[in-house]
């Protein structure tokens, strides 16, 4: 058999539409397939119709703003989807590829276009498009839900932090209460028991002098009891007073006032009291707390002085890691930290068989320091002396 290829036949019967148009869009030739697609007669199209005549108004805008610009700039355009309008007004979807044919000088002579009927594919594409839109909507919805989830999770986190803070507060309160119970069972009950015993002695005694002596003891114990009770009430007040005001305080001034207050005891004990606040001269701090802290530390040092040597007490400030530290050193009795360290700052703990021990001062000092966010530490050696280091607060 002789296979001669008839190009004219191939052109006309290929399963796609061909047409050729002038730069202004006028169609100057088309194959039979294109005429079949559009249901027009050849003489109705050739030199009568423009490419845009086969497009809907919306399609024309796309043709002019996208298709034409790509074609003019690049000389070719591929796989653009239009709906072509048939003679009877019905539409069918096409994919169109176009290429500009130019002369040797680059002048645009005409445009060759190939048109594929994609009716079946288009139905599937529409389904895809609908699915894609749904997916987009869902994705938007998810983003929204995600946003809401994120904000509620943030809220929960905030509530959690609030709860933690509240919990912390409650724990502190609890600690205070348990301390208070401790006082009730020890600090207050012991002297009361003491009073009861004294009362028994008093009732049993017939000697007037004995009774006078016992009565004097009553007075002394009641005096201590009252003082202890007052200080306890003070310390509870400190713990509750969270929003106490800070003000600029100069260490030298507070220290001088402390010395004046304790002048009698200093004279009596012949203590040598010195200070050096040059490293940190001042601080933003509740003034009454600092006064109370210094008063407690100084009176403690005098009270627990060694009878064997002249008491030497030195106060100074240091700055460590941006924190102002107050240091009080003495050469007094010292404390056996191994034995007593763990309950040094608790209530009603006294470590010296000393007539004036009440066991409240250090507890109150610690409470005040911690209420402002600081901490207190101690170094001590029995019969050598004690050093208290108080980190007042981060300040610089």
């Amino acid at each position, binding site marked *: 058999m002789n296979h001669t290829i008839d190009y004219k036949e191939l052109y006309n019967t290929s399963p796609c539409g061909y047409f050729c148009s002038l730069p202004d869009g006028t169609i100057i030739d088309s194959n039979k397939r294109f005429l079949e697609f559009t249901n027009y007669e050849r003489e109705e199209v050739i030199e009568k119709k423009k490419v845009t005549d086969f497009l809907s108004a919306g399609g024309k*805008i796309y043709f002019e*703003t*996208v298709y*034409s610009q790509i074609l003019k*700039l690049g000389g*070719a355009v591929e*796989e653009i989807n*239009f709906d072509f309008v048939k003679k009877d007004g019905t539409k069918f979807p096409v994919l169109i590829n176009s*290429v500009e044919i130019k002369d040797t000088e680059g002048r645009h002579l005409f445009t060759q276009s190939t048109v594929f009927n994609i009716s079946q594919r288009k139905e599937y594409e529409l389904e895809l498009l609908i699915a*894609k839109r749904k997916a987009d909507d869902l994705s938007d919805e998810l983003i929204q839900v995600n946003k809401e989830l994120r904000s509620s999770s943030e809220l929960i986190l905030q509530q959690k932090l609030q709860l933690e803070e509240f919990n912390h507060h409650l724990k502190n309160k609890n600690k205070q209460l348990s301390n208070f119970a401790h006082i009730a069972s020890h600090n207050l009950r012991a002297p009361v028991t003491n009073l009861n015993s004294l009362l028994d002695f008093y009732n049993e005694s017939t000697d007037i002098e004995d009774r006078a002596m016992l009565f004097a003891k009553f007075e002394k114990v009641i005096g201590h009891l009252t003082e202890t009770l007052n200080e306890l009430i003070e310390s509870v007040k400190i713990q509750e007073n969270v929003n106490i005001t800070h003000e600029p305080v100069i260490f030298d001034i507070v220290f001088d006032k402390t010395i004046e207050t304790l002048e009698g005891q200093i004279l009596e004990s012949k203590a040598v009291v010195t200070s050096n606040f040059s490293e940190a001269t001042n601080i933003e701090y509740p003034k009454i707390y600092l006064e109370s802290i210094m008063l407690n530390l100084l009176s403690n040092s005098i009270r627990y002085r060694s009878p064997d040597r002249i008491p030497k007490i030195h106060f100074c400030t240091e700055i460590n890691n941006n924190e102002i530290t107050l240091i009080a050193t003495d050469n007094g009795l010292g404390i056996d930290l191994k034995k007593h360290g763990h309950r040094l700052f608790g209530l009603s703990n006294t470590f010296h068989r000393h007539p004036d021990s009440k066991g409240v001062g250090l507890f109150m000092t610690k409470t005040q320091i911690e209420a402002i966010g600081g901490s207190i530490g101690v170094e001590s050696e029995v019969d050598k002396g004690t050093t208290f280091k108080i980190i007042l607060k981060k300040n610089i």
Partner: protein
Amino acid sequence: MLKKLIARNNITIHGDGNKSMLLVHGYGCDQNMWRFITPQFKDDYQIILIDLVGSGKSDENAYDYDKYSSLEGYADDIVEICDALEVKDVSFVGHSVSAMIGVLAALKNPAIFKKLIMIGPSPRYINDDDYFGGFSQKDIDELLETLDSNYLGWSSTMAPVIMGNADRPELAEELEHSFCQSNPAIAKHFAKVTFLGDNRSDLDKLTIETLILQCSSDAIASIDVGQYVHNHISNSKFVVLDATGHCPHLSAPNQTIEAMKRYLV
């Protein structure tokens, strides 16, 4: 500031003249569309080309759907760019929708502009009582459908429009790149803003000298529409080019250049 704008609008500057010309593309393309025009002006002008935010190689992340929900957002950008570049007496050339963006920019800050050249302008595409814009709401819906169907394939492939251009491969590559960057969601939003907007009332306020270049046969902006624009801009000149289509600067560059030069002299 300027650096930010250069990235946002892909600002490029060409030519070494002492006068300033700012050319802004219309819907569907980017600054590449001026390639046949700019060589003819580069001796006399400092030519500023930009891509509108959301088009071409502009910074897609700068596309704020609120800001660009009307042409005002684009007009603000034009004023901002001229201020940052410190240019005055600018000859502004706007194609299609950018003709209206130019009008809005000139109303915001008339001092910047010397002359306006509009190519295929339309203040309103939708017919409205006595006004003939050429399209109905339904037509614009069809356009949006066409956009959708052409993006269905585009969104999943990196090179949606492959340019066969053996003799100038750099052109093909550039365009391919440029069109890849057109985000379908942005293109659709921009189409709505462009084709559903109405800027007819802004035309009457314009006092700057304006040239309207109109193709004799334009499916997007008909002669009637061009005539309407001319009638409503007091200081305007109307020139009909013997050209088909919406882009005479591409299909009839020589005529376009000649008309522009005659007006700018």
